C-alpha cells in the first residue's frame, strides 16, 4: 500500500516513493502522484515543515544518485521550470503552497551548490536499480537506417526528457531531435 503524503493543488495527492536522506524524519525524498509524475522533495524547515518540491523524472534521479549531476541541479532543472513551496499554517491548520521559478529560487532553499548526493546504502542501490529498469520497457532498434523507439506494456514515468538520453549503438536520440517523429498508430518514435 502506498503511503500518502500531502494533497496540494499543484500536484494532487502525493505518495511517498523513496526516502533518500533522513535524520529521524525524511529530508530528501521522492514522491509521485496518481499520474505517476515524480517529484523530488526537500524538507528545509523541520518546524514549519516547509518543503520544496520539483517535478523530475527517472533520468534526473538516476543521474543524481550516480553523481552525474548535483542535487541542486535537479531542483533548478525542474521539468516544468517551477518549484512548489509548501508549508504548514498551524493557526489555520492548513497547508499553504505556491510556485516559484526554479531558475531564480533563492539558494537558501536549495541544497548547497556543487554538492553531489553522498548518502549510499543497500536500499539506495536497490532504488537506483529499480529506476534503471524503467528503461527496459523501451525497445530500441535500427530499421532501414532509422532508429525506432517503441514502448512496451506498463510503461510509466517516461517522458521525452527520459527518452532523449537513450542511445542505441553510437546514436543518441538527443542528436536526432529535429529529425524524429512519432507514429501514434503504432506508438513508436522514429529518428
Amino acid at each position, binding site marked *: 500500500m502506498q503511503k500518502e503524503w500531502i494533497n496540494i493543488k499543484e500536484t494532487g495527492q502525493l505518495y511517498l516513493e523513496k526516502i533518500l536522506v533522513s535524520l529521524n524524519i525524511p529530508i530528501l525524498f521522492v514522491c509521485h502522484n496518481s499520474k505517476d509524475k515524480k517529484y523530488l522533495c526537500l524538507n528545509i524547515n523541520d*518546524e*514549519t515543515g516547509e518543503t520544496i518540491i520539483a517535478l523530475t523524472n527517472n533520468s534526473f534521479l538516476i543521474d543524481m544518485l550516480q553523481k552525474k549531476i548535483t542535487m541542486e541541479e535537479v531542483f533548478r532543472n525542474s521539468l516544468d521550470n517551477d518549484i512548489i513551496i*509548501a508549508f504548514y499554517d498551524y493557526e489555520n491548520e492548513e497547508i499553504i503552497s505556491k510556485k516559484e521559478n526554479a531558475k531564480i529560487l533563492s539558494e*537558501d532553499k536549495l541544497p548547497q551548490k556543487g554538492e553531489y548526493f553522498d548518502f549510499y546504502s543497500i536500499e539506495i542501490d536497490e532504488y537506483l536499480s529499480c529506476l534503471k529498469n524503467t528503461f527496459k520497457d523501451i525497445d530500441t532498434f535500427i530499421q532501414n537506417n532509422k532508429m525506432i523507439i517503441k514502448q512496451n506494456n506498463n510503461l510509466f514515468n517516461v517522458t521525452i526528457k527520459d527518452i532523449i538520453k537513450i542511445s542505441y549503438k553510437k546514436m543518441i536520440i538527443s542528436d536526432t531531435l529535429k529529425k524524429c517523429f512519432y507514429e501514434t498508430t503504432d506508438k513508436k518514435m522514429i529518428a
Partner: protein
Amino acid sequence: MFLNNISINLEYYNKFPIILKNALISGTVKFSKSLKKEYNDLPAYRAVKYNNTKKEIDKSDFLSYMELPKNPLIIIDENNISSYSCSLFLNLDELHKITKFPTKNKAIAKGMVKKEFGPIDINNNTSHIDLFLYEDVDPSNEFEVIEVCKKNG
C-alpha cells in the same frame, strides 16, 4: 552491556516520556538489540534551534519528533523507534553532510552524552546516535553552540 541481556520491564519503560513509554508497552516499537544502557561519556554533536530570538540551548532542543506538534508535511513513522529519539552524531563530518541541505534556524552544538541521560543506539557506519532521553532529563547544560549552519537561511 546490551539491553536485551537484562530484564526489561514496565519499571524500565516508566523512565521514558509518556509517548515512548506507551509505544513500548503497546508494542508499537521496541528497542534495538544494539541499545546500550551503560556507556562512558561520549562527545557528540546535535543540530539545535538557533535564530535571532533563540540563541540559548534549552530542553526543547532535545525533543524527539514524536513529541513535537503534528505537522502533515513532516513525515513521521510512529512504528520506527528512531522517531522517539534525540539524534546526535559522534562525527561532525557526518552531521555536515546533512547541513549541506537548507537547515533553517539551526546551529550545531557540541556536548557530552552521558548514561544518566538515557540509553543510546549507535550506527557505526554513520556515527549517528539515537538517544532515548529519560523523562525529565535536560542535557542542555552539557551542550554549547559551536557553529551556525551555513545554510541557516
